[in-house]
């Protein structure tokens, strides 16, 4: 009975969406026919948002990174706070279970040593991705998540790798405070919060785009330590 009501309700919402979006008098652009000139993103791409800036706006080759960190940087600050609060919430909710869960299947010799190599490789790729965040695709978030998954492999593969590492908390705190200190420095130097006060250099080489790479590296470190903490808390449970 409940299933039938659910189906009816979903079909009703679906009809409402389809007639609204794809009806005859709706000017919602069909798939693929949108042209970028009538959206805000046009000047992100041509990099001429603020003509009277002395150097080219943001030297970052990856336009998405320049949007996420340079043009709409408050979103990224909010985003990092969301992950910070959910990592904190997981710690508070699951905090009473101190011991690390031991699985029935003990990790064998091959698994233990193989993981040591693989998690090293994943760690380096993660760091590479968020250092080159403003040049190649990817950035602080996927890079940080890769760091988290490399530590996850270490948690799973050998027993005594304890999950309560205070170093992550320290790194998380310092990276977050550094992001805000850079923002406040931008406020005092350039008059705007998170103002890009460093010279921009030319598009494409590593030291370019002002504070964009610095911010994205800090975001990567913070996201990495938060996700490792969060996964560590998930691994804590009653030792059966």
């Amino acid at each position, binding site marked *: 009975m409940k299933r039938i009501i659910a189906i009816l309700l979903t079909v009703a919402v679906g009809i409402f969406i389809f007639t609204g*979006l794809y009806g005859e008098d*709706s000017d919602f652009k069909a798939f693929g026919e949108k042209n970028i000139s009538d959206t805000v993103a046009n000047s992100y791409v041509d990099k001429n948002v603020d003509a009277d800036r002395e150097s080219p706006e943001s030297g970052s080759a990856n336009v998405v990174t320049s949007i996420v960190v340079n043009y709409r940087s408050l979103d990224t600050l909010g985003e990092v706070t969301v992950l910070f609060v959910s990592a904190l919430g997981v710690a508070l909710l699951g905090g009473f279970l101190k011991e690390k869960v031991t699985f029935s299947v003990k990790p064998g010799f091959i698994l233990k040593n193989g993981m040591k190599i693989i998690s090293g490789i994943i760690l380096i790729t993660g760091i590479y991705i968020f250092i080159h965040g403003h040049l190649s695709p990817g950035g602080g978030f996927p890079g940080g998540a890769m760091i988290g998954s490399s530590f996850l492999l270490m948690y799973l593969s050998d027993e005594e790798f304890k999950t309560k590492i205070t170093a992550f908390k320290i790194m*998380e705190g310092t990276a977050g405070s550094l992001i805000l*200190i850079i923002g406040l420095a931008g406020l005092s130097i350039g008059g705007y919060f998170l103002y890009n006060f460093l010279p921009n250099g030319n598009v494409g080489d590593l030291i370019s785009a002002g504070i964009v790479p610095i911010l994205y590296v800090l975001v990567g470190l913070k996201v990495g330590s938060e996700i490792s903490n969060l996964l560590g808390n998930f691994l804590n449970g009653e030792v059966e």
Partner: protein
Amino acid sequence: MINPILLVAIPLLAAFLSIMVKKLSGVFLFGVSLFTAIGSFFIENGSYVIGGWKPPFGINLVVDDYSFLILIIVNILFFLTLLNGMWDLKKNETVLLVTLAGVNGIVMTGDFFNLFVFMEIIAISAYILASSTEKYYSVFKYLILGTVGSSLYLFGIIILYGTAGTLNMADLASKLPEISNSVKVLAFTFIFSGLAVEAKILPFNSWVRGIFGNSNTLTGPMFSTVYATVSAAVVGRVFGQILTIDTNLIYAFITLTLMTFIFAESAAMASKNLRSILTFSSIGQAGLIITMFLLGGFYAALIQLVNNAFAKMVMFSIATKTYSSNEDDDIDNLAGIFRKHYMMGLGFTISALSLIGLPLFFGFYGKINILQTAFATNMWIPAFILIGSIIEGIYYIRLLVKLWNPGKEGDESSEEAGTSYTILNGFTVSIIALVVGAVFVVAGITPEFLVENIEKAANSLGDINTYLSSVMGGI
């Protein structure tokens, strides 16, 4: 003159530092909350740009008379909630700092997607605060509804971006006439349903009973005042000023909010539990306030918003304090408790009477203006509002009578027949109750100082042109 971004940045900085120095997090919390409560008085109106990029491209924080008033109220309420909830902090200091940053950010932001991000920050902090009372299933229902709501909200603003090409509130307001009607109806319905979860409107407020009903001395006042004010203020900004919707859509939303008002009041009439009466009263007031915002009666909505926020601060803190000291808030067993705590009883009575809207109290101006704006529209809306207000008056008067004279109904009130419960360490609660009660009475008699600020805020919400000129000519 401090830059309003500090109201968001300083609490965040304190939150990030407080996880490193756990012992100082309490000091950080009270210090930063005091800073924002005082700092919010020293903000100048204007559009503050983030990162130096002009509004349609960058994100801007808009401080006009409306958000200035809401900022002051919300920061004062936050500080009072901390004073009330000192005993129930339970390692939540860092989460509260992040909530403070999110609350300040959501009121000031001038960008739709930024509003979504701050809404998520507030929602996740609310899930963690609410789960400090170990009622995990109610928190789970709140999480599911909250996440579905914010996903629908994101779907709505993406449709608007797909057609209008911008995410900035001012830019979108100027581009609204070009969007076709069917897309507008679709997008506004989804945006309204997204915001309705937090604003406790009918189809999405099944979570409220579990969260508010089981609240402790920190989460009770926090959710019923700070969160209620912020969610109503966001609906006021988005649907009152920016997105002008045509009449038949407005009447669709208004039927929802008025049904919320009527059902909540009648449910409060039927419940026998102090905290659940206040819960249903909060839902009802939220419905009433948002009806006023949708009808365009900003002045009445803002007075009722302020009135409801401070009245609920007093009532919820007393209700949760009695529950935490006696583990029971059934009003029959609590009969005559105010005889033992005169100060709390006085504060509770004044705020209850002001909430109903009796003359001589501040709430009177709210009720009068609500009825004025309602009568200006048509016959049905004021009829429902009157019915709801009468129901509300009945159950509050009945509640006060029961809580004042001890003993069961009927037999004459005798001193020892009253409840054996007492309220422990209620000193700060009674001080706050008295202060807020005094403010209600003074504002009831000489309302100039409060009403004239609310008048300015209502006018600034009314005219979109000053908003557009301040943003488009942004500093």
